């Protein structure tokens, strides 16, 4: 279980919520309400106060790089720095690019050739290749057509049930929130408000 207690940064908070094993929580809200900043704080990329516990262990007891490997943030604009796709994956990555509509040759693709939608889909694979306990998804289907968005939703749901992983899904689309999440929050001016199911 991922527990967030009175989390606040310089800009947002205090925020408290829980994600139980295998659960997906959706967060929506106007742009600028602090959704991305909340995800950044949970991934420990920005300084924060309060408590974050993963399966009972406080974040500060876990080395930073292990925390981020286990609590994967998929940013709205994923970055690719090396020449080819495969260089961004750990060796023997246990992920199947076919699930997101890629052929087996995708590993050798030069990063420069990737469209923003391809970058976003491959970034999900790249995050899953780290075998995270928690996925923090920042509008993961923003640049995708309907079919690709469907693949992404299916892959996340599959990973979640198979590994009892926890997902925090930031999304604008109302229909998607209903499809993917069991629990819905609205972010307003840096604070969370729970919505009735």
């Amino acid at each position: 279980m991922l527990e967030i207690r009175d989390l606040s940064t310089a800009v947002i908070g205090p925020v408290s919520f829980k994600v139980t094993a295998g659960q997906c929580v959706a967060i929506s809200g106007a742009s600028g309400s602090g959704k991305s900043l909340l995800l950044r704080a949970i991934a420990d990329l920005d300084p924060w106060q309060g408590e974050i516990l993963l399966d009972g262990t406080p974040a500060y007891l876990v080395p930073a790089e292990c925390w981020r490997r286990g609590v994967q943030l998929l940013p709205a604009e994923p970055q690719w720095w090396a020449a080819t796709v495969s260089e961004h994956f750990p060796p023997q990555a246990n992920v199947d690019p076919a699930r997101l509509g890629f052929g087996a040759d995708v590993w050798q693709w030069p990063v420069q050739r990737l469209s923003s939608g391809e970058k976003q889909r491959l970034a999900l694979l790249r995050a899953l290749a780290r075998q995270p306990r928690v996925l923090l998804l920042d509008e993961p289907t923003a640049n995708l057509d309907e079919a690709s968005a469907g693949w992404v939703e299916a892959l996340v749901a599959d990973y979640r049930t198979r590994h009892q992983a926890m997902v925090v899904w930031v999304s604008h689309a109302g229909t998607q929130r209903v499809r993917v999440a069991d629990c819905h929050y609205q972010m307003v001016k840096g604070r969370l408000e729970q919505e009735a199911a």
Partner: protein
Amino acid sequence: MTELILLSPLDLGMAAALILLLALLSWRMRLGLGNDLMISGARTVVQLLLVGLILTAVFEQQHLVWVALISVVMLLVAGREAMAQQERRFSGWWGFGVGTLSMFVSSFTMTLFALLAVIGPEPWYTPQYAIPLLGMVLGNTMTGIALALDRLTQNAWDQRAIIEQRLMLGETAAEAVRDIRRHSMRNGMIPSINAMAVAGIVSLPGMMTGQILAGSPPMEAVKYQILVMFLITAGTGFGTLAAVWLGARRLFDERQRLRLDRTRLRGRESAGS
């Protein structure tokens, strides 16, 4: 030995006229360099004349305290200058401290090493040797450190999205910033490596030229120049290494978060975006 030809104020005035001409040209062409040229030129005259006076006094005194005092002043000025040359620098004392500490460690070690182990003047702090040696090592180390730190902070700023992406994927701060650190090191070291590579072919190094002008036999001047070039490269290298190491650590906090809010643009109080 040939007699040293003494320069008159008129001789220097003629050289100064060249700088003035360049500044006039710059003003006419609106290059925005004219003021800098004039100010820097004036600083050269005033500073060097002052140094001449001070050195004359110190050479007569031959006292360790005076040598140490001058060394500290040189270090502090070099530290300030290295900071001023950086477009994006660390805020607070770190901006001054990272460069100055690195310079202190490398330049002073190199100079002491040269004085005690290599040249061996009697006493070891003989100002005729200690001060010019330290000056040359310090001056080059300063440039190297300024170039390296400038590249480090600027690249970290430009590539902040990539650095944070690598952190998100579970890399340590050291891994995420490794490429930038390497580029910064190269940036700081390449001028002195190049200087060694072309020494004597493309350029006649200033120190050697000065010694020859002053009447030293060329082979003696060359030997000193080789020593000085090695000291400069080693000093620049170790200093740059230390500065980049310290700087790269300062870019991240104890939770390995990229903390660009610890840097600021030249002339600004806090991190500008």
